[in-house]
């Protein structure tokens, strides 16, 4: 038995909502870089085994696809390559570098307050369900608290979010500034209806 159980897959497949194709392209880019075209085919095969007839080459970055597919694409890669949470975090960290939404549509203000106002809208540009809320922003402490609501799929994906948020925010910070994004509360472990991430920067 692999990392992901059949029950988990069924549960994820039951999730409603859609995600932009750009997310698949970001994930696919990482798989291609790490495992080449053959690796990507193995992931597609795993997805098919889980009941998802998914072809990466047919994905269009601005089109909408079932959100469950997005989660399962990451998890299939984790399953077939035995990737750990750090690998998934790296995958998330790579994603903004290839995401047309991040690079063209997200307003990357250097001012944290202005930037924080963009975050909820950014989520809506990519997903039709769930939301991100900026719970607090303390510019003196250089700390921001984010809540991701109605978008829990699997604990591994929380690591993807950490990496993704870290790189995206780093785009708007000077090179010598260090950004860290850490999950503080998880709906899978802490009996809360959201994922809480704490963003800190220097």
């Amino acid at each position, binding site marked *: 038995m692999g990392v992901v159980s059949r029950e988990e897959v069924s549960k994820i497949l039951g999730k409603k909502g859609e995600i932009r194709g750009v997310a698949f392209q970001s994930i696919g880019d990482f798989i291609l870089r790490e495992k080449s075209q053959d690796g990507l085919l193995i992931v597609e095969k795993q997805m098919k085994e889980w009941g998802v007839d998914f072809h990466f080459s047919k994905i269009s970055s601005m089109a909408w696809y079932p959100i469950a597919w997005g989660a399962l694409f990451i998890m299939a890669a984790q399953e077939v390559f035995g990737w750990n949470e750090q690998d998934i975090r790296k995958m998330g960290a790579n994603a903004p570098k290839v995401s047309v939404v991040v*690079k*063209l549509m997200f307003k*990357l203000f250097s001012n944290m307050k202005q930037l924080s106002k963009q975050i909820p809208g950014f989520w809506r540009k990519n997903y039709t369900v769930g939301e991100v809320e900026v719970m607090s922003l303390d510019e003196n402490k250089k700390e921001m608290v984010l809540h991701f609501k109605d978008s829990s799929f699997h604990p591994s994906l929380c690591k993807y979010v950490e990496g993704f948020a870290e790189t995206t925010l780093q*785009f708007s910070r000077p*090179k010598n500034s260090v950004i860290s994004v850490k999950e503080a509360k998880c709906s899978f472990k802490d009996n809360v209806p959201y994922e809480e991430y704490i963003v800190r920067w220097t």
Partner: protein
Amino acid sequence: MVNHIKRKEGELTEDIIVLEKAIKNFWEILPIPVCTTSPIFVVLETGRMFDVLFGYAKNELVGESLRKVIFDGEDSKKIFAQLTQQKKVFNIETSLKDNNGQKIPALLSAIAQEDEQGEAFSYLFSFVDISLIKKTERDLQEKVADLERFQKIAIGRELKMVELKQEIEDLKNKINIG
């Protein structure tokens, strides 16, 4: 009403897909090196010719400061300050640096992308490699210098000839008088 909204949404998605493909093709085919950066000049997207000019793989520079490709740190400071203030710079002569540290003379232009409040949220840069123009300029300067040297020698020779001719004339006159 719901059907109408759904139809509109569908059409918008189709339009976005078409536009996105057009933008991608544009980045791919544009013969000028271009890139976008965040407001603090972190590279976000590079065109194919940008990667070719600087010798980087696709997305290798994404997340890095644009300062990395500008040869002189002071120069980049000045350009970025001017751009932040004026929101647009045009044909600034500067020196760039490729992946091997080689200097590339270039003309840099850039424009800010602003939100409704006039706040810059990204910049679009273009670079024109003027290595060939600079080389031709240097070659021409060398040729001009050669010509000047030749002219000096030729004129000197010409003057000497005139002088000698005059001497001969004078000697002839002396012989005739004698």
